[in-house]
């Protein structure tokens, strides 16, 4: 599964000066499509928190963070701050996915579809893996059932490869499951 948003750990600090030989080092975990964007995002957030800019700072490390257990399903809670047409709002959303990157990608696409918020207007405040008891949203809680069972109601008939696609077919497809 290839994800558009990757998680990076970015470490940076202000440049050392005569008055401050060892400036404080700051570390951020953020989501970006590539490393260059991640570094830029890092300076954007750091500028808002401390008096340091990219021109008088240095990047110490940038590493991509990969999912530890991509074969288990987890419930992710994402706190975010987004800019709508009328102002800034905070939001808490829950997603069920195997990896955190997948959950974040779901969040971005859902914000775009439900609220028309583009990804540069979204700031992820915090993410956490939520145990099933503490989930707040009905749409994730309905899958917390060890004996889950449902039928697939409608079968979309699809060719196994796009090469075999035809415009006309001799008979109508059977849509029952």
């Amino acid at each position, binding site marked *: *599964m290839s994800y558009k948003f990757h998680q990076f750990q970015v470490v940076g600090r202000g440049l050392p000066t005569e008055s401050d030989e060892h400036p404080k080092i700051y570390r951020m975990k953020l989501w970006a499509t590539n490393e260059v964007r991640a570094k830029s995002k890092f300076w954007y957030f750091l500028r808002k928190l401390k008096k340091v800019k990219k021109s008088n700072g240095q990047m110490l490390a940038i590493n991509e963070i990969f999912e530890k257990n*991509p*074969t*288990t*399903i987890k419930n992710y809670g994402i706190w975010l701050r987004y800019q709508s047409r009328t102002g800034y709002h905070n939001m808490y959303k829950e997603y*069920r*996915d*195997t990896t955190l990157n997948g959950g974040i990608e779901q969040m971005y696409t859902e914000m775009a579809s439900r609220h028309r918020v583009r990804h540069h207007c979204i700031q992820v405040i915090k993410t956490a893996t939520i145990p099933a008891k503490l989930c707040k949203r009905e749409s*994730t809680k309905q*899958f917390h059932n*060890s*004996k*889950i*069972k*449902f*039928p*697939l*109601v409608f*079968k*979309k008939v*699809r060719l*196994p490869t796009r090469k075999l696609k035809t415009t006309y077919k001799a008979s109508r497809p059977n849509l*029952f*499951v």
Partner: protein
Amino acid sequence: MPFKRYVEVGRIALVNYGKDYGKLVVIVDVIDQNRALVDAPDMVRGQMNFKRLTLTDIKIDIKRVPNKKTLVAALEAADVKNKWESSSWGRKLIVQKKRASLNDFDRFKIMLAKIKKAGVVRQELAKLKKETTA
């Protein structure tokens, strides 16, 4: 017509699109409305959209998210492979695969066999016709 094949833990499904086309996988857990966590003895456990799966009649008895060893043991105990290959759907797939992998000499052999079979059928038919008219 009620539904008979359900998405549930332990349902065997056939992959009908993508890299793992034609494989039998076990639904090990349900992620959300559209995706399931699937597993097979020869692949890494991963997620798959239900659009890529076709449910079969076979269901094995496993708990939610078993580890690989118990999954393989459960597959053996339920004898999924033989059940699949003896079912009409499974047999049809085997024949399709065989037909696709024939070389020219095999097709020649099949042509001779078909002609022979048609000859025998026609003889029997002629015999039966003679019996009814006589």
